[in-house]
């Protein structure tokens, strides 16, 4: 059964249109990856789903109901959690305050204690750093706080925007460890990734983005076994 269904989505900034009729469906419990060259609208897609950007046309359904007219806070309450590109932490708050804000809504707040333990066991570094102010963290630590904050919310769909962007190889490995854990946990996940090959090994389904549309989608294994697809859409 599909959890998220997007049809003919159009969105953009000011006069500039970025998404031109995007269609995307994500099945409940599946791990979907959205890949494509820089600037083709991957982040814009996530922003439209989470309501930070208003859709100009098309529809977004979540668990059967239209969400494209809801406010971002209502969409979060529906269970869509968006870990944005570039972390967007609250710079003057501590690590623990950032994490707590992830469980801001009453439903998540009720489970905050157990979730915090889960996050700390998944990202042990955060336990040591919990009282440090976010603006003084290293890039890798920031990313972990960003992901941890998203995990605090629970939710039914977790969207991660470029979780490995701009990190050192060893930190990328740690982040991938977390992503792998999430992949096998059975949650529904949509991840945007630069490194298509690496994410394809984890993903159930690959969605290749080209100029504001989905140009190809298929199984992760199919993507890996057909280099011509890579050549056609991702430039080799």
């Amino acid at each position: 059964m599909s959890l998220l269904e997007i049809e003919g989505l159009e969105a953009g900034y000011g006069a500039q249109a970025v998404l031109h009729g995007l269609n995307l469906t994500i099945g409940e419990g599946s791990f979907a990856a959205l890949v494509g060259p820089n600037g083709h609208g991957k982040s814009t897609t996530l922003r439209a789903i989470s309501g930070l950007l208003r859709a100009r046309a098309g529809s977004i359904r979540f668990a059967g109901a239209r969400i494209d007219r809801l406010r971002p806070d209502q969409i979060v309450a529906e269970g869509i959690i968006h870990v944005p590109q570039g972390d967007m932490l609250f710079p003057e708050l501590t690590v623990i305050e950032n994490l707590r804000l992830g469980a801001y809504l009453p439903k998540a707040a009720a489970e905050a204690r157990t979730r915090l333990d889960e996050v700390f066991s998944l990202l042990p570094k955060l336990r040591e750093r919990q009282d440090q102010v976010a603006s003084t963290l290293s890039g890798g630590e920031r990313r972990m706080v960003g992901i941890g904050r998203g995990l605090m919310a629970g939710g039914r769909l977790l969207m991660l925007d470029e979780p490995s962007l701009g990190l050192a190889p060893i930190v990328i490995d740690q982040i991938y460890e977390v992503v792998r854990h999430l992949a096998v946990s059975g949650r529904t996940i949509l991840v945007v990734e630069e490194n298509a090959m690496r994410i394809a090994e984890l993903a159930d389904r690959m969605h290749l983005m080209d100029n504001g549309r989905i140009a190809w989608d298929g199984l992760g294994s199919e993507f890996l076994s057909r280099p011509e697809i890579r050549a056609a859409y991702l430039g080799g």
Partner: protein
Amino acid sequence: MEIFIQVIASGLTLGAMYAVSTIGLALVYSALNMLNMSQGALLAFGGYVCFYAMETLGLPAPVAMLAAMVVGGGLGLAIYLLVARPMLGSPMFETQIFIATIGIGSVLQSVVLQLFGPQPKAQPLNVPGGVSLGGVVVPWQSLLILTIALAMLAGVAWLLGRTRAGLAIRATAQNRDAAQLMGIRIGQVYAQVLMLSGALAALSGIMVSSLSGLLPTMGADPMLKAFVICVVAGLGNVPGAAIAALLLGLLEAIIQYLFGVQYAFAILLGLVIGVLIWRPYGLFGKRQVVRL
């Protein structure tokens, strides 16, 4: 020594009074990037509502103060709903809201003038007498103002630091988009912040008028001072604004003592302009990255 105590006492009273209205302004700027130029009129409104409640309706002082704060909060809410909200998404928001609130401030001030007339009035909320401290008589009025102001500041600090609503306000101020992704309804945060700021302005107006009397234009100077304090602290820096308010209050008292009342404000502003040339983003402000 006696003069020292006198200057300190009047400086702290001034500073505490400024701090109450300044943190309101700083809060609004930090959450919405909005400079509320109608703050001065809100101050006057607060002062006159208290006057009306006590003098005409015969209500006791605490009720009158509460009434003034409720009216101030209501006006703050109205300003959010009618003025700020319609232009929230605009790329020129900062300029637009500035100009619009100049207009609203003029409307509110004229309403006060229409209702109460141009003659100065005395604020009935006045405690006579004083207490002798080290040979100097410090008026009860000053001590009362200081106490209420400090209690207010503590209350706001508690609200921001210890409550869920306060956390939402701080989160919104630090990153609007991220706050929304946490499920915070930022429209509600904006409304709360403007209400709080309006209520604080009303209270500050009562304090100011209890010392220097009521006039429809009474809010103009305190507002400019509050803005100057915000600028010195770095716009949107709420704790910095409270500290800067106390410092500038003391400084003003010292300047008044040394050079006379009529030059205090001019010298103060001159000093502030000097500070800003030396540190363009305020004493406690961080250099802001210009978004490209």
